[in-house]
């Protein structure tokens, strides 16, 4: 007779199986089943694991197989099966075609750790490119270490993040979140984002001596970016960001070692002799809103999605949703949106809209959501969120129009694209420059207020002097890289 397993061991094996997303053994007793059910209830707090990358393909193939079997029975001719299979291949284009992204996701799943040299290059719109840094990285699951050329070593072991700075002989304890850097580096995140968003193969190239397919990824609401996937290993080896503020960044793994063992102490917190530990506010991982509220002294507003991690600092709560983060803190003073951003409405007040983030006040909290899912997560926090309409005209036309010379503007835009005159990207600074060109007494810079901005049209309120209001427009390019130009004003 088979003996019953030790209950603690049985429960442990059940949790192990669910953690590994594997089919568990059935329970040995009704009592054990009720414990299994409780485990499932807890695990249901997490989002369901995504199905395997090739699941849809397998499902459709099995569907075709079932249909094929039914047809074979109907026609009662075994020989016809082969004909049907050939017909299927002919009639269903794409069947059997290699999916680069699906293969990449599978290849990355086999990577437990990697070590490589990452080169970061920046290019401007004029085509000038330079290597801005080279860094050595070690990644194992959630843990990573990055060593810069000057010896600075940043380590995040999943629980703590710190930086060893040889030049200052200091070990600085850093907040563990938000940590956007890891998402630029991490092979898994690169593959996961490629799978999640619409993508297509757009060409083939050689990177660091390796042949690679170029895949263009188009996050909804964002600019497309590209990754290079090594055809031999199936792993991503290069990422090129979209042009942001006239600059484009390229991350390239010039070397990459997969699944080689690391030194035992690679992610251990070790203070070198003679170094001083500097700790500001390292934060505390919390598991529930109640726990966060207890530490912070305020009740956070929870989005509908479940955060992958929550970290409470002395003055703020950081919630992570993959590469998107939500930061909540007590609102203090007057809310002043960035002058170079667009303006929308949220929770009955102003909403600051930057290229990659949204910020507003809700009750006595100030909330910032940053990352590719910023809009959908923000909407789940505040239902009355209105983004600016880039097509919208000025609410009122300027009393005096200002003539513009498009030739001059296009030249200025080229200058900005090359990294010069960045102040042309800020409507308040363009206003100041315009008032200066009229030889007026200039107001205090902080006194200028953007009262309207769609990201394409903006109105700046001037508190003193003969001009009360300046109207600006992005005439050359209507995105965050476009320069602002004065198109009119209202006399006081």
């Amino acid at each position, binding site marked *: 007779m088979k003996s019953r397993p030790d209950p603690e061991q049985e429960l442990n094996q059940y*949790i192990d199986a669910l953690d590994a997303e594997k089919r568990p053994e059935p329970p040995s007793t009704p009592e054990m*089943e*009720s*414990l299994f059910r409780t485990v*499932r209830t807890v695990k249901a707090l997490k989002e369901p694991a995504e*199905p395997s990358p090739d699941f849809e393909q397998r499902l459709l193939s099995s*569907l075709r197989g079932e249909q094929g079997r039914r047809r074979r029975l109907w026609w009662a001719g075994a020989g016809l099966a082969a004909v049907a299979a050939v017909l299927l291949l002919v009639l269903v284009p794409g069947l059997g075609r290699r999916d680069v992204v699906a293969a990449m996701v599978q290849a990355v799943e086999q990577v437990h750790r990697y070590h490589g040299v990452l080169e970061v290059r920046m290019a401007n719109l004029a085509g000038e490119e330079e290597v801005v840094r080279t860094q050595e990285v070690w990644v194992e699951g959630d843990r990573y270490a990055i060593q810069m050329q000057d010896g600075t070593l940043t380590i995040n072991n999943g629980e703590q993040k710190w930086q060893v700075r040889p030049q200052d002989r200091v070990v600085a304890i850093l907040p563990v979140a938000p940590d956007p850097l890891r998402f630029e580096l991490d092979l898994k995140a690169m593959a996961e984002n490629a799978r999640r968003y619409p993508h297509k193969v757009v060409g083939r190239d050689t990177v660091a001596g390796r042949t690679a397919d170029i895949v263009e990824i188009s996050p909804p609401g964002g600019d497309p970016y590209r990754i290079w996937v090594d055809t031999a290993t199936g792993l991503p080896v290069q990422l090129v960001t979209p042009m942001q503020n006239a600059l484009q960044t390229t991350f390239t793994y010039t070397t990459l070692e997969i699944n080689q063992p690391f030194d035992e102490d690679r992610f251990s917190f070790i203070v070198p002799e003679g170094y001083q530990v500097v700790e500001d506010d390292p934060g505390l991982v919390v598991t529930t809103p109640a726990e966060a509220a207890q530490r912070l002294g305020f009740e956070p507003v929870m989005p*509908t999605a479940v955060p992958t991690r929550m970290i409470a600092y002395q003055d703020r709560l950081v919630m992570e949703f993959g590469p998107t983060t939500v930061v909540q803190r007590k609102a203090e003073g007057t809310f002043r949106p960035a002058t170079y951003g667009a303006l929308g409405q949220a929770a009955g007040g102003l909403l600051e809209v930057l290229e990659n983030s949204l910020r507003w006040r809700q009750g006595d909290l100030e909330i910032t959501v940053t990352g590719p899912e910023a809009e959908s997560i923000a909407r789940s926090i505040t239902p009355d969120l209105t983004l600016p309409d880039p097509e919208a005209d000025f609410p009122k036309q300027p009393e005096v129009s200002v003539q513009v010379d498009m030739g001059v503007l296009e030249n200025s835009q080229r200058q900005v694209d090359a990294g010069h005159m960045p102040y042309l990207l800020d409507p308040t600074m363009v206003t100041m420059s315009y008032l200066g060109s009229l030889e007026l007494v200039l107001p205090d810079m902080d006194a200028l207020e953007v009262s309207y901005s769609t990201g394409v049209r903006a109105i700046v309120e001037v508190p003193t002097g003969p001009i009360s209001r300046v109207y600006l427009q992005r005439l050359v390019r209507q995105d965050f890289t476009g320069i602002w130009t004065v198109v009119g004003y209202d006399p006081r």
Partner: protein
Amino acid sequence: MLIDEQIARRAASGDQKALEQLCAQTWRQLYRFVYHRVQNREEAEDITQEAYSRMLKARPASYSAGQFVTYLQTVALNVIRDRWRSAKARDRNHPLMQPMRSTGDAAEGIVQRDTVRRALDRLNPDYRTVLELRILRGLSTAETARQMGRTEAAVRTLQYRAIQALKEEIR
């Protein structure tokens, strides 16, 4: 989910392309429905696949667009029931088979999650931590033991008691 009536009709008449379209439109919803019950990818994929296979074999006279997913969910529940019977031919009232409080409806899901979260909050800190590390963060027993400064045997005992305590809290 809105399903095109025309596709549903063509699928019912055996149109392979329409069947594939119908499958492509619905499988994610069915997968989530099944995953919600079994909480592991391997089984959720198998059961989802088998549900479609049975749907084809059953050859329903029509695929009503409005009820297609509900129909598939019923088939999936039958698959789960059959698997349970073959594993342990004993309990027709197996919890996987009872009507779920949530069928993927967002509001109900939130209420359900909130109930569990509140129950977790009421547990003592060690119980809460071990469940958080083992189930929500998916750490191994060894990793959990290291983080909690305990032996692996102690973690196994702690998680067993924590699950028992949580079961009582949720009851």
